[in-house]
């Protein structure tokens, strides 16, 4: 079902709302946030220069570095007293980025997540198990509030202790699973090892996946493990913008609908920083136009996608963003070729003889980049001879060569021997970083 009328407005109506909200938020950050005022003054922009939506492109970008430089609350437009919630990003390097919510921000966040959960098929009949880690990460509590708001029965099981997760699923009759796609696959595998067929013995029929991108091939794995009738959608967000709730897939599975009355999306060329025309692929830049505490303007997400403005079969008119092609900062350059790990994943998941988990190790030997891909053997019938296993390695290698144009060495490893992740999967190790 469509949760809010704002999801079906005409392009003119939505743009009218976006412009008035953008003008208000630009005025507010100019007045209240010295760091923004300084940046705008340097570029000679005053709030009243924003006369149309196309003037947004003249505003300065905001980056993760700006949040770090203003750690913890420097970019906030309200005093600490007005905050009712503080979260921080998983920040693997350096200081975490801190985000905050006023009471009204919490309402907006909850509303945005409810819309996305409804898009993915959630109703008040669902029993929702949230297998995201709780804590400073926005994912778990974001989904928690949004699902409760719909009226689903929310079980905050958090991540980890997979066998117990499966016990709850069985005993509570869980119908909806919230997890990273890689953890959802892991839960399914563990259920099988415990002697359950997730498709038959569990009632999980909706998967709302996020926290990391899900490729189409991963979605097919999801159907295989959890049942062909599972509603498998992914949603998108990041703590700096609001957390989950920026966009999500409807059941037509043709991109993620952006909540455009709260966020304005642009696509830029990450090198030249120029705005690209509709439909072109580039880096997603998002402006928050309704948030009170931390309304970031032109935030560089580093995610690569493209925007589709045609109305969707589901009835929503909001712009859709295509499944992420990767992150501009995840991109590996191997022997001069741009490689997104998601491209390798697409290839691997189409090889039935191996499992869904993999590891990529990039190194440099004699000044040449090397890439090794570890995959788990899943098909026992190949154990007849070394020749059959060798043929499998060779076949994967040539498929990778066709897609990427470079050679990788393929290493078969034992089933279940690669690391499993309960949060975001970290499947790439680049050993070249400390070398010249």
């Amino acid at each position, binding site marked *: 079902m469509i949760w809010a009328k704002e999801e079906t407005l005409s392009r003119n109506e939505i743009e009218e709302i976006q412009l008035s909200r953008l003008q208000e938020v630009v005025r507010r950050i100019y007045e209240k946030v010295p760091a923004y005022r300084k940046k705008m003054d340097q570029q000679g922009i005053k709030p009243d220069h924003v006369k149309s939506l196309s003037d947004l492109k003249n505003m300065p970008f905001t980056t993760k570095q700006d949040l770090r430089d203003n750690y913890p609350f420097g970019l906030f437009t309200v005093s600490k007293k007005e905050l009712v919630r503080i979260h921080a990003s998983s920040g693997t390097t350096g200081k975490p980025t801190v985000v905050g919510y006023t009471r009204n921000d919490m309402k907006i966040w909850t509303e945005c997540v409810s819309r996305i959960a409804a898009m993915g098929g959630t109703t008040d009949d669902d029993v929702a198990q949230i297998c995201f880690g709780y804590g400073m990460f926005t994912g778990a509590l974001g989904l928690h509030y949004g699902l409760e708001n719909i009226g689903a029965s929310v079980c905050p099981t958090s991540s980890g202790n997979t066998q117990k997760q499966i016990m709850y699923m069985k005993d509570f009759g869980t119908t909806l699973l919230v997890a990273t796609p890689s953890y959802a696959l892991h839960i399914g595998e563990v259920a099988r*090892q415990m002697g359950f067929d997730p498709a038959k013995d569990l009632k999980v029929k909706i998967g709302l996946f996020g926290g990391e991108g899900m490729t189409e091939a991963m979605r097919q794995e999801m159907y295989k493990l959890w049942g062909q009738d599972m509603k498998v959608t992914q949603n998108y967000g990041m703590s700096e913008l609001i957390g989950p709730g920026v966009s999500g897939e409807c059941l037509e599975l043709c991109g993620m609908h952006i909540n455009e009355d709260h966020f304005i999306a642009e696509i830029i060329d990450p090198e030249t920083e120029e705005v690209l025309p509709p439909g072109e692929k580039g880096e997603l830049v998002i402006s928050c136009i309704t948030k009170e505490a931390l309304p970031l303007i032109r935030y560089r997400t580093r995610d690569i996608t493209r925007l589709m403005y045609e109305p969707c079969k589901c009835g929503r008119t909001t712009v859709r963003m295509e499944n992420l092609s990767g992150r501009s900062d995840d991109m590996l350059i191997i022997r001069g070729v741009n490689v997104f790990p998601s491209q390798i994943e697409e290839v691997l998941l189409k090889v039935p003889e191996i499992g869904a988990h993999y590891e990529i190790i990039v190194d440099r030997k004699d000044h040449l980049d090397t890439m090794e891909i570890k995959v788990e*053997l*899943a*098909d*026992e*019938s190949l*154990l*007849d*001879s*070394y020749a059959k*296993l060798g043929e499998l390695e060779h076949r994967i290698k040539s498929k990778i060569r066709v897609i990427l144009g470079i050679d990788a060495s393929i*290493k*078969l*490893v*034992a*089933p*279940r*021997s690669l690391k499993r992740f309960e949060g975001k999967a970290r499947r790439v190790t680049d050993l070249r970083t400390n070398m010249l």
Partner: protein
Amino acid sequence: MIKQLSVFVQNEVGSLAGVTSILKENNINLKAIASFDTPEFAILRIVVDQPDKAKILLAENGYAVKITEAVAVELEDVPGTLNGMLTVIAEANLGINYIYSIVIRHKKAPLIIVNTDNLEKTVTVLRENGYLVADQEDL
């Protein structure tokens, strides 16, 4: 014919002991074992007294395992018997993929396990030439 297990093992310290410890803990008797030096991984071939049980246990412990049939031939411990058997197989135009043996059998002659591309034909030509081909219960 007898049953043999083919197990995928990685080339790292303790990987064979990992397999044998599972067999020992479950009181499964190992009759023969073969593995050769390979760079990345190996197919470990074993013959045990309870192959189906061993397969389930190994699979539960995360191993990729396959049960296949194998030809096991009883050979007297005198010079030239192995040569005789290999000649019979060669004259039938059958190539040998790998060969290993079960040496310890209670008061019985050793068994040679041989794999070719055509197991049925191998059994037939060996029997026609008077060789004793063992079945699982003969172990």
